[in-house]
């Protein structure tokens, strides 16, 4: 177990290192001179040189990289060009909104996916299965930027029940959480269905039935616990993706989280902030995935003993 833990953590560090290196080179992909792009053509030479020095762009590239790693190690992601606040401070002020939305979306996804997946598996190859699978396929094919405006149209404009966008109270969270949650639920219920179908035909379920246990007891005691493993992995992946910033959904609903921050930074050509957001998003994604992987082993004794 400790060996696995060590290997996961070293892999996490390695991938984080690779991701940050890739993000470092992003700024060098800016066509032309990044300083000119950021300041505009009318900026004076002094301003340009000042910025070049403050971003270390005057140094040879390997020195830039070394400084970048050094700062990263001290959790220093640089300073925003636009507001001249530290990037870390800006990100921290936006993190809460994203976490809040991610948790709400996750709850909606679970609440929708469990009944959908269970009904589909219980009535396999009958109409409830086809209906639930069609809903899921439909859900997978609707992109967020279509579902979002449709929900706004329906609940905020025609019915007037909920606010269109922004972040003021619980009501404003419903629509973005629904947009993200239903898309997740679609994938999740498909996974749950196939996982439940696998478990339902195992000998231990047959023997539980032969012992005369009630169907409810079989479902909750014997089927669900065993069917949850692949679902948990997927859930981890999805939660990571959500924390990672539902960039498009946050943009649609002007939800002031990390995703919207990324887009704002791109629009303002605030490259240090863009880099900071991308690093934070991907590192939290890697971190959540690593935790899921470890959790998976803790839950399932078969995997724990096999490795």
């Amino acid at each position, binding site marked *: 177990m400790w060996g696995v833990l060590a290997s996961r953590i070293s892999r996490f560090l390695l991938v984080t290192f690779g991701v940050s290196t890739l993000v470092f080179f992003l700024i060098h*992909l800016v066509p032309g001179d990044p300083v000119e792009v950021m300041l505009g053509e009318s900026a004076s030479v002094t301003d340009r040189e000042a910025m070049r020095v403050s971003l270390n762009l005057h140094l040879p590239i390997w020195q830039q990289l070394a400084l970048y790693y050094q700062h990263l190690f001290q959790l220093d992601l640089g300073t925003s060009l636009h507001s001249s606040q530290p990037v870390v401070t800006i990100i921290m002020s936006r993190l809460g909104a994203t976490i809040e939305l991610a948790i709400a979306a996750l709850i909606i996804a679970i609440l929708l996916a469990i009944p959908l997946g269970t009904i589909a598996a219980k009535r396999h190859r009958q109409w409830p299965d086809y209906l639930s699978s069609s809903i899921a396929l439909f859900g997978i094919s609707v992109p967020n930027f279509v579902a979002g405006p449709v929900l706004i149209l329906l609940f905020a404009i025609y019915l007037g029940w909920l606010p269109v966008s922004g972040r003021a109270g619980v009501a404003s969270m419903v629509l973005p959480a629904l947009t993200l949650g239903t898309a997740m639920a679609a994938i999740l219920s498909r996974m749950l269905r196939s996982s439940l179908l696998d478990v339902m035909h195992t000998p231990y379920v047959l023997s539980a039935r032969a012992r005369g246990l009630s169907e409810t007891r079989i479902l909750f005691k014997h089927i669900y616990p065993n069917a949850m493993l692949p679902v948990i992995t997927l859930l981890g992946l999805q939660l990571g993706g959500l924390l990672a910033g539902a960039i498009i959904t946050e943009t649609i609903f002007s939800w002031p989280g990390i995703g919207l921050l990324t887009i704002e930074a*791109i629009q303002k050509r605030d490259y240090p902030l863009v880099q900071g957001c991308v690093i934070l998003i991907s590192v939290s994604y890697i971190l959540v995935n690593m935790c899921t992987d470890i959790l998976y082993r803790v839950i399932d004794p078969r995997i724990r003993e096999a490795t």
Partner: protein
Amino acid sequence: MRGRVNFTNVLLAFWLLLLLIGITAELHPDEVSLAHILQPPSSELWLGADDLGRPVFDRLIAGARVSLLLAVIVVMISLFVGLSVGVLSAYIGGKFDNVISHIIDIFLAFPGILLAIALAGILGPGELNVIIALTAVGWVGFARLARAQVLSIRHYDHVSAAQALGQPSYRILLLHIVPLLAAPIIVEASFAFASVMIAEAGLSFLGLGVQPPQASWGSMIRDGSRYLLVAPHLTLIPGLVLMSAVLLFNLAGDRLRDHLNVK
């Protein structure tokens, strides 16, 4: 399955019809007309007009050309790059494979289209940059798939036989290994097509993709969402069309998977 009237076939027929119209029709997607601003669908303009009075139908078809063309290019390049990297990595093995699989891991560590958004944001908008950004994300799926397949295929008897006969590596790869990858790669390509279409529309929706006045489904939804209250058809119509296209490729992927017996 063949010849039956079902949802997939109807959807396919609808798309073939649109394709025919798209090739043959004379379109005026950029024709501004003040008289028709934000007009809802009518018998004269049967999908209505947008905020500049441009016909939504014409823009939809013109947008389809852009979206489909971009998706084809991105999937082709991703497939070629991913397949080459994956096959070579698994076949050569050793340290080389180790390095490649770490690189694949690093690219997979960016959730969703984050990397594409960052790249498109840094490189600036435009069709070429959309292709670069989406290919940078797209090749990984193919590489991972090809690598996993080749890792088992290279131990098959016919590969060992070819090696024992002294066949050069490139012949073994091209004649004895790559053809066996066709089925899973075709299925993957079909799903990739669906996700590239969503991603391209997503980038255009964020203003990072195809630029005005060029029509694209994503940018049509973006422009339309500003007039949600007065002209919901500007958002709903491109949204529905995009959705049906994505659904079609997802359904086709499911069908191909069953038909070609992948996994």
